[in-house]
């Protein structure tokens, strides 16, 4: 949040919208995020069972007081697995988003600051990447690099990069022509100082908002890849992998797919609600 407030100070005309009332959906989304953060940080405190402890005799039990979300085919507690699954699932989403933004920063800056030829080159490259659906791009990358947690994280990161890159490029070009940059040039600031103090901070602020929205998408994509068997190997408790395992028993043991699916939906919904809220308050 400190980053955001710093950014906010630099651009005038925002304060009038900043104190808009927090809506009910936003409060709920906030609660979900808090719960998820707690699950990522202290899973053992929230989960009553070991997520990997098998007990074949207790397999396929529906939700009960003992097992809130039921048990899976090996008698593992689904609630505990969902809680422990928050860390890998969200981590992949978060790291993938970070990779996407990092890569986009390089591409966007090259296009925005590197002159006409580079702008043209990067622009066409981005158009080619846009022509392919993001998930397809991720699958192509996995086909080349082989499946695994690291590759699927990078794959999701790569496939989100073009979108962020285009926004960053646009922002940089916009800020580059602004009065404050002109003033800095007149004051004799070096090129690097201008980039660091004016261009990047101002170009990045909308990206953070969009990244909040994108985080949910990245979690969904990462789960999709896991669902296809391209992510964490068994017995990891990861939401997408849990969905895939439960799919076989969908007609007889619905809880095996329902609860991990519900958490993916909650994550995506919460990050979307918060992202939209931020967007309304911060972006002109």
């Amino acid at each position, binding site marked *: 949040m400190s980053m955001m407030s710093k950014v906010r100070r630099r651009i005038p005309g925002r304060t009038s919208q900043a104190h808009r009332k927090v809506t009910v959906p936003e409060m709920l989304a906030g609660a979900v995020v808090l719960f998820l953060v707690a699950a990522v940080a202290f899973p053992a405190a929230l989960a009553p069972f070991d997520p990997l402890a098998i007990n*074949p*005799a207790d397999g396929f039990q529906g939700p009960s007081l003992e097992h809130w979300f039921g048990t899976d085919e090996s008698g593992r507690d689904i609630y505990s697995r969902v809680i422990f699954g928050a860390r890998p699932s969200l981590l992949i989403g978060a790291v993938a988003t970070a990779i996407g933004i990092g890569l986009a920063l390089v591409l966007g800056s090259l296009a925005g600051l590197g002159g006409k030829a580079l702008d043209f080159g990067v622009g066409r490259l981005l158009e080619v990447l846009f022509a392919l659906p993001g998930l397809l791009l991720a699958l192509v990358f996995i086909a080349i690099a082989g499946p695994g947690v690291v590759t699927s994280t990078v794959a999701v990161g790569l496939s989100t990069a073009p979108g962020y890159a285009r926004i960053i490029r646009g922002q940089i070009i916009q800020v580059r022509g602004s009065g404050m940059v002109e003033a800095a040039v007149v004051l004799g600031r070096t090129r690097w100082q201008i980039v660091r103090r004016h261009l990047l901070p101002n170009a990045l602020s909308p990206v953070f908002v969009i990244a909040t929205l994108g985080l949910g998408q990245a979690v969904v994509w990462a789960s999709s890849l896991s669902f296809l068997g391209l992510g964490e190997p068994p017995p990891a408790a990861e939401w997408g992998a849990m969905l895939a395992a439960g799919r*076989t028993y969908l*007609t007889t043991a619905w809880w095996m797919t329902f609860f991990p699916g519900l958490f993916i939906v909650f994550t995506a919904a919460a990050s979307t609600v918060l992202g939209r809220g931020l967007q309304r308050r911060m972006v002109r």
Partner: protein
Amino acid sequence: MSTHFKSSSARFSTAVGAVSVAALLLAGCSSAEPQDGQSGQTPVSGGELVYASGDAEPTCLDPHVGGNYPQALVSTQYLEPLVSLNSDGEIIPWLATSWEEAEDGLSWTITVRDDVKFTDGTPLNAEAVKANIEHLKDPETASSTGFLALAKVKSTEIVSEDTIRLNLSQPDSALLESLSQPWLAIESPAALERPKEENCEAPVGTGPFIVDEWVKQNSITLVRNEDYNSPPADAAHEGPAYLESITWRFIPDSASRYAALQSGEVDVIDNAQPDTIASAEKNEDIEHLDAPRPGASNRIELNSSKAPFNDPLVREAFIHSANVDAGISSLFFDAAERSHSALSSVEELGYADPELFTYDPEEANRLLDEAGWDKRDSKGYRVKDGQQLSLEFPVSTNQSIPAEVSLFEQIQATAKEVGFKIDLNLLDLSSWYGALAENNYDLVSAPYTKVGPDVLRILYHSDGIVPAPSGYFANLSQVDNAELDKLLTQASQETDPDQRAALYEDAQKLILEGYYVLPLYDQQNHFLYRSSVEGLRALPTVSTPTFYDVWLNR
């Protein structure tokens, strides 16, 4: 009901007129009503059957190439082997009418029928059989199953128009059993002349159906062979098949496959999952055909060619660390029974020893300490000389059903308590073959289906470490034991049944007591079908379903 009619009429829309549609509508309605006393009714000719396979889609429809079970499932409908088995396990005529082994066992004379034509018009004769055997033995064909089964066939001689002699390098007590398998079916020699890709698209045989069209990733269309006259000796009728055509679809997802069966969109499914079978038992419209495959049991092979499993103590420890029984009863809903043998329960010469495969973590711990793996790292995995006790376990998701993968996860969990780290890698078929070819595995589960106990020679003779032309090697535990080789070779040449049984028993003792395998259960082979499907049976050879006698009662 409406789904059923809609999909049926869509399939037929171009081909049939209003009368047929009306008949179909009536048929569709009647199937909803409870039926009784189906057996004894007169079979009705005509109609289209939809089959949905959960097995991998073959890359080549000619089972000579490679030679796996998915190929056998579909090729049983259009290709036929020389002989078959009856339900008592005796060899019965099919394309061959008679056969005779020479005194010294070094040659076999086989006579084939003189009135059969392949569906391209080429006659079946000794020349055709010769061309097929040469095709199987040609490295260009890249055969695995058929190639290994014919390993002892040295040369072929045409004796007369319909009689061929196979000259062997050693007596082969399993030759007829081998020849009864769908992977050694006889194809038109004229069709085999075509380029491999072309023959893979639509092999030409003598079977009751003909490959009409193959839309990859979707379905194979088989149409009736109107001139068919070569059913096996145990078939229920003669002449052409009742069904007009079969649509052979691929629906890899188990739940979707079962849903399609329930809705009537498909008539027969294979690879029915344990939970599906349990729920189908309660459904009156759906019948269950349980046809365990012959050959090997489903088992985990322990790769003895490299550390840590080159140490017999570590192999024994692993086997005692795996809790298999609890998982089998819960995951398979009592549809599968624990096996303690390297052979399928269908095989009469199978030898089992439950004492060897007990779950005994204490004993496992003791054995690992004794083997020098007496320290543990922070995660509880055992270490020795800075090496972690970790095992690579590539799993083919095409061959291992979800319940089996779950069982592997449970074995992973119980083995962890003793200090084994097992890395389960879920792979598609080609990556899985790749992992095996690179010797990048310590544990592997690979089904192997073959008629008769000779499968032991293929799986555990040291010759099986050398890859077949397809690149596949069958001796995945890489047992290299001169005494075992000798027993298996002797057994495969022995014609005296008692002697043969004794030799195979000794061989199996060596395999089981050497802790090279962890047997799990028989190779599961469950089919579910709509009760309107009459006359479905699995061939007693490798338990593939045959649709020759099938008719639709709707």
